């Protein structure tokens, strides 16, 4: 070792020693003044870092001399994250002595200063001036980013295969490959298929009979109309929407599975919207901007009552409240709460909005321009800005306080007046009640005192009337002996008072009067809604998606590469405006007739629920990484037809269900199968119907319907669920255990076991496509669960009482809608008898 090196080693050893000595309390006593970049940090950087990290070509691309470049960082990412020294590269490098690599390391005091400066907010850093957005945007000519153009309906050779244009598109592709549509399924199959598809229940024997007796040529279309008119339709298709919306009834993203008691109003809104075939454009506008669309704030300020349309509008914004939001009022005190707890809700909201309405997973662009899809990072934050005026991570309203009352200003003010009057009356009545009680308590005292020997009375009285702490020893003894008797408390006092009829009579009257007053208090229903908050909202681009490295601010906007004919149109409102209009502008842009994605994504979802797979097999990804459409022309025809029909979802159902494509058999002839399997083994071209699994809800509902125990009341609060000792989560006894599944409470951390076993999604963000699993816990549930055992018993009772002479025939008719096939009756008879 050279002398110099030796000296240097000794020096650092001494430094270390010194550092330890300096660890005495007080030496590093926190300075109260704010640490600044200029005064406190730059000197350290100048003395220890500047040799490498400055100038035109700083090492690792990191320039430490300009505060805003600390956030932009260098090749290894941001050098610092605001208020998070422990997770900042700058602090990591200097605290571990990795930097500077040669020469004097930072002293403990310098490290401490850097740490404290960062954790106090990194004064002087501000927002990064630019974002690294140099990546090429590939795929800008993606089919799904251009508006759908209505294609001509193709001509086919086999004309009788075509019942409507859908068939022409399908048959055309099949004929191309030498195939054809399969024959239509049997009538009963079609009835069951349509009934499950549209209302999620099996047809009843009466409905089967009615359908079989209808010999009119349009019997099938009538049957479909009947089902579309059924109120159960909304329960079935509303449930599909609730999946993509990520609907749950608890905020339990944290362990505390906080219930959201108002969430069901949104669920009911969705069911009603489907039942009334609310035009889909309006449906989206209401969910994204129902408050702005229906003029909630105007109505609040000026109307006597909120019109029904406004109430519906604010309930619809529940769509934007489905993202997990565990926040409580005390979260505000947590350091970096915005980044840790509030921003995630905003991220999830945007993911839900974009996957649901546009079939795009834009969340990649949160951290960097999208790797596959032509979505620049800034666009992500432009869209985030649309929701920023409402959500405000920097000025957060905890989820339980974020709600609107179904009332206008007039009503609220009137209610306040009325409440003040009631308060006064109640106060007077309560005072009277207290006085009454005091009078009679005194009477008890006097009477009991009189029962004592006369000579004792004055002393006992004096003892008991003296304050507890001031009693003499003698008085304490007396009190111990007589207090209980003369001054009874609690229940004993109540019992003693109850002896006086003139007390009880008046007490009853007074309590009744108080209750009557309380009943008069005006009460308003509340809505879990999203609405803008007062004040200006800014939206920074977050470098690498990190709220602790904010970048330049952006204005509200949309995906710039999406070729929608109508641009996003928004102008900042007056300062005094109660709502910014950002969400309405977004909703209008989204629902323009020629939007490249909105109609396509929705018709694809409808198709998916009728065929098992969408025309685009990835309903949440219409981007480069998603599946290309199997029938692009059909998709566009359906999308334009959807818009033409006034965005009528039921119109699309009707088209699909009256097509020969949908009516095909799944069980095809061996020749047909052999031919087509060869060419198209996965049935992408739809040479037959696919066999599909019933989802959890229709499975459970069908079982209850067949057992005859399904409880059908619609709407309102959900049936609660509870976790049993054995870990099973069920609708407990005492609740309506047989309620339709869409009304069973959905808790993030305690999902109802049977529904979960059959793949009802456990919601983290939302569910754009359910998994279909086949596991033996499903078999065990069907074989042994209490729910099944109960349903089986009810089913047995039912068929035996309905058809005591032929319970087996009745069982099959009820469950499968048909009479026993060959050998079936014998088989079942052997089992049952």
């Amino acid at each position, binding site marked *: 070792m050279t002398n110099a090196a030796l000296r240097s080693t000794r020096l650092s050893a001494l430094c270390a020693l010194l550092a330890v000595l300096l660890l005495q309390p007080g030496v590093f006593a926190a300075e109260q003044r704010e640490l600044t970049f200029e005064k406190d940090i730059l000197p350290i950087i100048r003395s220890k870092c500047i040799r490498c990290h400055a100038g035109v070509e700083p090492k690792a691309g990191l320039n430490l001399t300009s505060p805003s470049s600390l956030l932009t960082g260098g090749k290894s990412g941001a050098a610092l994250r605001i208020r998070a020294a422990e997770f900042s590269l700058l602090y990591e490098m200097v605290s571990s002595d990795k930097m500077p690599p040669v020469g004097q390391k930072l002293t403990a005091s310098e490290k401490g200063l850097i740490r404290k400066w960062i954790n106090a907010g990194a004064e002087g850093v501000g927002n990064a001036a630019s974002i690294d957005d140099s990546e090429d945007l590939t795929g800008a000519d993606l089919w799904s980013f251009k508006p759908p153009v209505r294609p001509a309906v193709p001509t086919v050779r086999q004309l009788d295969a075509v019942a409507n244009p859908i068939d022409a598109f399908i048959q055309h592709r099949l004929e191309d490959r030498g195939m054809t549509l399969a024959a239509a399924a049997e009538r009963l199959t079609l009835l069951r298929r349509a009934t499950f598809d549209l209302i999620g229940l099996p047809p009843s024997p009466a409905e089967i009979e009615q359908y079989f007796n209808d010999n009119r040529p349009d019997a099938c279309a009538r049957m479909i109309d009947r089902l579309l008119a059924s109120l159960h339709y909304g329960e079935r298709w509303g449930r599909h929407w609730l999946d993509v919306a990520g609907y749950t009834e608890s905020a339990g993203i944290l362990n505390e599975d906080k219930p959201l008691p108002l969430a069901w109003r949104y669920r009911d809104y969705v069911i009603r919207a489907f039942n009334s075939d609310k035009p889909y454009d309006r449906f989206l506008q209401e969910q994204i901007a129902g408050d702005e669309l229906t003029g909630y704030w105007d109505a609040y300020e000026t109307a006597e009552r909120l019109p029904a349309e406004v109430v519906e509008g604010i309930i619809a914004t529940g769509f934007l409240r489905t993202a997990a939001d565990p926040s409580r009022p005390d979260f505000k005190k947590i350091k970096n709460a915005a980044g840790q707890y509030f921003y995630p809700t905003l991220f999830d909201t945007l993911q839900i909005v974009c996957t649901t309405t546009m079939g795009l997973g834009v969340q990649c662009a949160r951290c960097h321009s999208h790797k596959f899809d032509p979505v620049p990072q800034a666009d992500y934050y432009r869209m985030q800005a649309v929701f920023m005026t409402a959500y405000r991570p920097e000025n957060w309203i905890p989820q339980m306080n974020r709600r609107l009352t179904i009332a206008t200003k007039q009503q609220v003010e009137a209610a306040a007046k009325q409440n003040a009057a009631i308060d006064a009356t109640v106060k007077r009545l309560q005072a009277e009640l207290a006085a009454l009680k005091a009078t009679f308590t005194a009477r008890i005292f006097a009477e009991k005192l009189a029962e004592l020997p006369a000579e004792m009375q004055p002393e006992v009285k004096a003892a008991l009337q003296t304050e507890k702490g001031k009693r003499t020893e003698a008085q304490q003894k007396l009190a111990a002996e007589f207090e209980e008797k003369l001054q009874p408390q609690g229940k004993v006092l109540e019992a003693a008072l109850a002896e006086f009829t003139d007390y009880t009579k008046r007490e009853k009257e007074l309590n009744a009067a108080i209750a009557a007053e309380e009943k008069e208090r005006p009460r308003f229903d509340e809505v879990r809604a999203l609405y803008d908050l007062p004040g200006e909202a800014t939206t920074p681009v977050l470098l690498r998606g990190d709220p602790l490295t904010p970048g330049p601010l952006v204005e509200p906007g949309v995906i710039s590469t999406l070729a929608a004919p109508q641009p996003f149109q928004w102008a900042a409102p007056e300062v005094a405006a109660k709502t910014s209009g950002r969400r309405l502008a977004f909703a209008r842009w989204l629902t323009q007739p020629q939007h490249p994605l909105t109609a396509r994504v929705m018709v694809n979802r409808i198709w998916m629920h009728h065929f098992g797979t969408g025309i685009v097999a990835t309903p949440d990804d219409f981007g480069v990484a998603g599946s290309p459409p199997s029938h692009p022309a059909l998709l566009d025809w359906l999308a334009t037809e959807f818009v033409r029909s006034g965005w009528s979802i039921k119109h699309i159902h009707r088209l699909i269900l009256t097509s020969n494509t949908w009516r095909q058999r799944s069980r095809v002839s061996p020749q047909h199968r052999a031919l087509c399997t060869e060419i198209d083994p996965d049935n992408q071209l739809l040479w037959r119907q696919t066999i599909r699994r019933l989802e959890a809800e229709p499975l459970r509902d069908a079982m209850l319907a067949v057992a005859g125990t399904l409880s059908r009341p619609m709407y309102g609060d959900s049936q609660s669920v509870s976790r049993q000792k054995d870990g099973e989560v069920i609708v407990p006894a005492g609740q309506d255990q047989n309620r339709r599944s869409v009304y069973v409470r959905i808790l993030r*951390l305690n999902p109802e076991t049977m529904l979960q076993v059959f793949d009802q999604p*456990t919601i983290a963000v939302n569910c754009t496509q359910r998994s279909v699993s086949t596991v033996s816990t499903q078999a065990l549930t069907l074989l*042994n669960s209490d729910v099944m055992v109960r349903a089986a018993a009810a089913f047995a009772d039912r068929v035996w009482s309905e058809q005591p002479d032929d319970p087996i025939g009745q069982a099959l008719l009820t469950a499968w809608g048909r009479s026993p096939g060959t050998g079936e009756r014998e088989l079942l008879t052997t089992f049952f008898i």
Partner: protein
Amino acid sequence: MNQFDPISRRQALYQFGGGFGGMALGTLLSDTSPAAEAVSHMTPDFQPRARAVIQLFMHGGPSHVDLLDPKPMLNRFDGQAPPDHVADDESLTKHLFGSPFQFRQYGESGLEFSEIQPFVSQHADEIAVIRSMFTEHRNHEQAIWMAQTGLTTAGRPTLGAWTAYGLGTENRNLPSFIALPDPGGAPVDGVRNWSSGWLPPRYQGTVFREQGEPVLNLKPKQPRPQVIEDARSRLLRELNERHLAERPGQLELEARINSFELAGRMQLAATTALDLSQETKETQSLYGMDQPTTKSYGTRCLMARRLVERGVRFVSLFMSGQPWDTHSKNNEETKNCCLRTDQPVAALLTDLKRRGLLDTTLVLWGGEFGRTPAAQGGSSNATSGRDHHPYGFSVWMAGGGIKGGQHYGATDDFGYRAVEKRTQMANLHATILHLLGLDHQVLSWPHNGRDERLTDVYEAEIIEELIA
């Protein structure tokens, strides 16, 4: 179906898996061969060291400075304000808090443990302690998600689910991923601790219970006579066969029918696997099953060994709530946790070893973070607690290819911040997968438009020094 379309290919595999060359369905039902789609995840040039994992998840965040990471400086400056460069960043704790527990060296390696782990410390030479862990959140749930799923966001697949997906099972009658929660109550974050996230549900942990029937609905609550049970099975089989015969080539239907058959087999397999009466008295008392304090955790440790022995890939053990969350009375509560778990955990290591299973079974011990070197609340050392601490903490691993008798990395003098060989969760996860023969960069699932993996976008490194 487009062959370049991973989603449809995989979906086809898991939806129709039952038909492919008789390959049974899903891992819950599959045989020894790993799921077909997982074969490509195996590291080609590395012989797997572990074939099973037992995860002892310590909810709440055990205090590293009281258990595995001795810090004399803490005791020396006990009660004083922490120096600036180790001050707690939320100023919740203002007084350094020395550990009352003596640390000693154990085994030939001299690995240090505190005195409250008299049993586990006997395995010092098998254990590798990572003292330089850090995580990214100081709240339980987010840190649990980080530890269990790789990111601080909810809803991702857990380590157990990834393992089940990557390896399949060795026993077609038992699930490949089993969770053993405390009968006293769920751990914090409940079912998400064994969730498959956006992996198919068949990879989620199946809960086995230490009391009553091992699996929910294994049998009806009101038992049925065997004759009825048998007749029911026969009838069901007959009806199913008829149904299938009319729908030839419907693979999913076939799989569905198989699942009923397999459910029957699971009834037997699960019941046998958890029949602890087959164990000797000596083994039972080794696990502390004869003492009230250790009975519950000991029972689950023994269950874990029996399950791993039968080819289960991943067993997770939990305690109710978050017992290590020692915000007050840190010393007493930490000791209590050791009283409940130390002997059973040591017994598990002993038992695995004597049965020749330790070499191929990786045992993981650790929580979601550590605890502050400074005291939280409390007027005396007896009542003081320690707060959550993400910047530096310890976990340990043993068996399954781990080189025992070492500690890896270090925190600073106060146990505040990991400073040497800083170890992010992704490194730990990558190493665990590596020991199982899985490549963390390859084991992925298409989700949100990209192939997502346990280590996500982290540049994770396999910690070679830990591997024997």
